């Protein structure tokens, strides 16, 4: 009998996992819906939003700067190895510009912010959950989604595109540094090559490069993913301090996977809409 009930529980295991996953997807969607509603309805916590903008946006400038710099430098180094074989080192700017603005800028910025700010949000809200501070908010007639989630959501939506611009610029400058110092290109040649890569897919409204638009749409989605995933994990924390650690780790893992998967599908859609 014991063996039979054991087998039955093993058989029901995948079904339980699927049911649990479906439940999480539903709860995540509900939180997203409430956060979106909070964007357009009162009360709006402007002061909390500014505090979060400072923490998520300004606070991430350092790592975003370093990410951009080393990414640009390594892109230039790697492409130089191949390009030198064909005597095409003057096109290094094209490679660096296109890679940074279209893909690496938005994705790496999002991953870094997820690791730094996302984990912080999950841990902070998780600690508030296990010490009953979120319950305290509710007992005082304050909706925790509006007070805690919406300001972080808005801050990420604003900060991610701006941080991505910083990463893009620094990456291009990092490439410039290597191209000039190590490969002997002139700055003008490198920058012209970067411009050509950005102009390659045309312009929107005659002056905004399509590649730049692609690179700016993605951070909006990535910002939403980072904030909502971190808040979701934080608000659902249980199990004391151990639970807080689990929430922070889970939030970074989940948002990183979501960012990479969303990047693929968004790229497909944006290529279809803007280039093809």
């Amino acid at each position, binding site marked *: 009998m014991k063996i039979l009930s054991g087998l039955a529980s093993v058989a029901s295991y995948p079904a339980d996992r699927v049911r649990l996953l479906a439940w999480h997807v539903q709860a995540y969607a509900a939180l997203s819906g409430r956060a979106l509603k909070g964007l357009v309805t009162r009360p709006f916590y402007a002061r909390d939003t500014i505090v979060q903008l400072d923490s998520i946006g300004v606070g991430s400038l350092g790592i975003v700067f370093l990410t951009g710099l080393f990414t640009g430098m390594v892109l230039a180094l790697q492409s130089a190895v191949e390009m030198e074989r064909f005597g095409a080192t003057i096109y290094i700017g094209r490679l660096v510009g296109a890679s940074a603005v279209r893909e690496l800028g938005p994705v790496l910025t999002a991953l870094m912010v997820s690791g730094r700010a996302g984990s912080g949000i999950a841990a902070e809200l998780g600690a508030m959950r296990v010490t009953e*501070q979120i319950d305290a908010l509710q007992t005082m007639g304050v909706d925790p989604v509006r007070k805690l989630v919406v300001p972080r959501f808005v801050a990420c939506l604003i900060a991610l595109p701006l941080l991505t611009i910083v990463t893009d610029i620094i990456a291009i400058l990092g490439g410039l540094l290597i191209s000039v110092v190590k490969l002997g290109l002139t700055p003008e040649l490198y920058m012209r090559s970067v411009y050509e890569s950005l102009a390659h897919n045309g312009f929107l409204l005659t002056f905004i490069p399509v590649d730049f638009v692609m690179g700016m749409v993605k951070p909006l989605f990535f910002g939403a993913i980072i904030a909502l995933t971190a808040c979701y994990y934080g608000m659902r924390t249980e199990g004391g301090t151990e639970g807080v650690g689990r929430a922070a780790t889970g939030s970074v893992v989940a948002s990183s996977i979501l960012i990479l998967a969303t990047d693929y599908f968004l790229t497909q859609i944006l290529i279809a809409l803007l280039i093809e």
Partner: protein
Amino acid sequence: MTPIIELRGVRLAFGDRVVLNGIDLVVNERETVCVLGGSGAGKSTVLRLILGLIQPDEGEVLVRGRDMSSSSYANVLEMRRDMGMVFQGAALFDSLTVLDNVGFYLFEHTDLPESEIAERVAHLLEVVDLNPTEVMTLLPSELSGGMKKRVGVARALIHEPCILLYDEPTSGLDPITTRTIDELILKLQRDLGVTSMVVTHDLESAFRIADRLALLCEGDIVFEGTESEMREAADPYVREFLA
């Protein structure tokens, strides 16, 4: 006597674990009722149900005649304004000073000038026997356990609720601080006429402050009555609990 809090046939289970098994409990106006029970008996769950933080599987939770379990979220938020809650660990907001913690409700829900809120906070800190000038600007991390509890009580009182709910108000405190917190609860009941429900496992403290006591055991209320009735009860669990 007007009933202020009524639990009628409340049943709640988390998965297979039955926490409350169809309990009935009434707290009348200006009364202090202590809910006793061992760890994990579902005492704090009772408070969470009254606050509408969780919903029962069956039964009704009435606060001043309105059902918390079937009201809309907006109504629940409004009904919570009648209640003040003192949390087990005080649940003070880490990033806010004592002034901002105690005045939180007024900062959130009123347009009162900061100076007036500060005045009210100072008055309440005096009510809970704290020196306003000393503690107003401190962060929760700079307070002792007993001070945190007092600030928690002051925060629960700021919007002048008619119901006060206490979750283990004396847990983790030394006997002297426990006694002063008990005296504070009695003082608030006497001076402000609030209706109180106190969840505790501290018998001595419960006997000091309660008008009536209810003992929870495995999801059921096995005893409800006064201290003297409890001492004379024949129920084996009550006898064991008193021993």
